[in-house]
């Protein structure tokens, strides 16, 4: 003990650590009373970021940044017991960061912690939110399987919708004319160098500002922020009633962060990262690119809005959201902080959470995606194995009808459920629809022989709801 203590005394003497860092560690923070557990999400985000840096470095030591080898190196990592766990932790760490930074942003928004003098705290936080989303996106792409490859293509196509610079931006993302050798290196550099560098810089600034402006006190209805008197009031309040950050408040941050890290590690071990898909071979056409869960709602939103809005939303949606985050502290920099006096803030959060929740749900169902893997209808559904109805069921599958239309639980849900087509439509009506098509259904005028049409109509006419069966089953993807 004596040696250790003497060593520390010497280090402290020559470095001055406890004199410089001690006051920072024990600076006074407001008592948060009932809301004290709401202050742990920012530090938990930081804790998981550190987890991401650690596991990311570990993964990068085996990952090969080459479009041709990345997939094989990921197979290698996944087949190693520890490697697959590290991948799992990195994946669930990314998920946890998205969730925690989201909660942290909602908390600071509801408590109006962005008001004077913490406007730049908010702005740096908004930048960190954006960087975190970019990390999630680029990280998903580095899983350079078929999904990762097509994510790059779809991202370039979406960036291509940007006015004026779209064409250049799209090819900039791909690092060339086509998605190929240079593409992955570009995203790797972004994921492990560019964006993390910005995260470190903004994180440092963000933490500095937290210390500089002090932790925001819990809001109280009827106690508005007046920029002229706030600082004086805040420091007087701290002097009277503040508690040292370490350990009074910090233990809560560490305790919650520990729980989150345990959860992330457990998920990494027992659930694991998403399995690798097929290799990133552009000639394997059987691909249905879908984003990871954190972008599923956005993917769904883009799929469900009216077509004329699409290009506006792809470009305008993120722009409007970013503008809102930037302008908020400038236009709402003073006044009431309590959510009770800012009911619209609760409404906005409820609205955003509902929208995201709804589109997440739809993203899981993906009703707009044809089920191109739908198997031919089994005899139990068709009812017969020979004759025109059975032939019609075969045509129903071969012509792609089944990819979009459900029959007794088989097929897609893009178009109307045809389990009871015979109850709802006459033979002539069905034939008309097959010939005319619709907004989302091709016209089969030139794509169907008279014989095929006859048996298909026989089959569809035979579709009736039998009393007990035919409950709609929406197969999730």
């Amino acid at each position, binding site marked *: 003990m004596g040696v250790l203590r003497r060593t520390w005394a010497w280090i402290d003497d020559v470095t001055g650590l406890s004199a410089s860092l001690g006051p920072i560690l024990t600076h006074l923070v407001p008592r948060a009373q009932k809301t004290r557990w709401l202050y742990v999400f920012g530090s938990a985000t930081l804790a998981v970021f550190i987890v991401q840096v650690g596991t990311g470095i570990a993964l990068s030591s085996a990952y090969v940044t080459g479009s041709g080898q990345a997939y094989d190196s990921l197979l290698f990592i996944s087949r190693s017991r520890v490697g697959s766990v590290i991948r799992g932790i990195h994946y669930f760490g990314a998920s946890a960061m998205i969730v925690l930074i989201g909660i942290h942003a909602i908390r600071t928004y509801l408590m109006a912690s962005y008001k004077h003098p913490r406007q730049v705290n908010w702005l740096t936080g908004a930048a960190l939110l954006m960087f975190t989303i970019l990390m999630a996106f680029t990280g998903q792409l580095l899983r350079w399987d078929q999904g990762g490859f097509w994510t790059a293509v779809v991202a370039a196509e979406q960036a291509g919708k940007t006015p004026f610079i779209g064409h250049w931006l799209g090819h900039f993302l791909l690092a060339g004319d086509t998605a190929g050798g240079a593409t992955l290196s570009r995203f790797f550099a972004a994921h492990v160098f560019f964006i993390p560098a910005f995260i470190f810089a903004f994180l440092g600034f963000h933490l500095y500002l937290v210390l500089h402006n002090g932790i925001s006190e819990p809001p109280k209805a009827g106690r508005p922020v007046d920029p002229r008197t706030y600082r004086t009031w805040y420091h007087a309040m701290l002097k009277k009633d503040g508690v040292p950050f370490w350990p009074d408040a910090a233990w809560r941050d560490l305790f919650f962060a520990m729980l989150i890290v345990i959860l992330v590690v457990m998920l990494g071990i027992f659930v694991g990262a998403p399995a690798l898909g097929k290799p990133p071979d552009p000639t394997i056409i059987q691909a249905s690119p879908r984003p990871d869960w954190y972008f599923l709602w956005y993917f769904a939103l883009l799929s469900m809005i009216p077509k004329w809005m699409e290009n506006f939303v792809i470009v305008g949606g993120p722009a409007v959201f970013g503008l809102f985050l930037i302008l908020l502290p400038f236009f709402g920099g003073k006044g009431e902080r309590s959510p009770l006096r800012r009911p619209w803030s609760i409404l906005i959060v409820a609205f955003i959470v509902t929208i995201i929740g709804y589109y997440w749900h739809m993203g899981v169902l993906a009703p*707009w*995606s044809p089920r191109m893997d739908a198997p031919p209808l089994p005899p139990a559904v068709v009812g017969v194995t020979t004759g025109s109805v059975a032939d019609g069921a075969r045509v129903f599958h071969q012509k792609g009808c089944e990819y979009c239309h459900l029959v007794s639980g088989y097929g897609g849900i893009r178009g109307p459920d045809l389990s009871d087509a015979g109850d709802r439509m006459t033979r002539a009506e069905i034939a008309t629809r097959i010939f005319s098509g619709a907004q989302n*259904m091709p016209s089969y005028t030139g794509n169907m022989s008279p014989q095929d049409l006859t048996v298909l109509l026989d089959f569809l006419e035979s579709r009736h709801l039998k009393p007990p069966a035919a409950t709609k089953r929406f197969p999730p993807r």
Partner: protein
Amino acid sequence: MPVETQETAGRADEAVPSGLTPDGTRRSFLTAVGIACGALATALVAVPSAYFLLGLRESPRVWRPLGKVDDFKVGTTVEVAFADPSPLPWAGVTAQTAAWLRRESETAFKAFAVNCTHLGCPVRWLPEADLFMCPCHGGVFYGDGRVASGPPDRPLITYPLRVRDGIVEIETSPLPIAG
């Protein structure tokens, strides 16, 4: 940081003579020199780095063989694969590009990019239905590339083709991105 630190910092600032003091001309000159040195050094590194980063790798457009004319049956559409015009050594499988090749008659061929004109997902060919279908949002194209239904508003992009010495050749093209 505690408020005391700010105040101390404030006082320290006042102790430093500003540019308005008698020797201000020299100080403001040295300030300008210092900033200019930093800016020059930064530019020396930043300009070539940015140039390298922002520059796009442009591939030449070259003709790649797809196969003998007789290998493709009239009236069929098949997937063909061809290599990038200048594949990077480490590109591996990603140096390949796929296209749909349709032989319309004895003499006429058509090659379609596999990318749906909506958001770029790979469309699949349904031979029995004579349709291309996109798995992402259900865009459908007729066999000749016209939009049949769904979100796309442009026909499938076509590649230039030619026949030389009985070999069908395709001209490599950039990934079609709507600008």
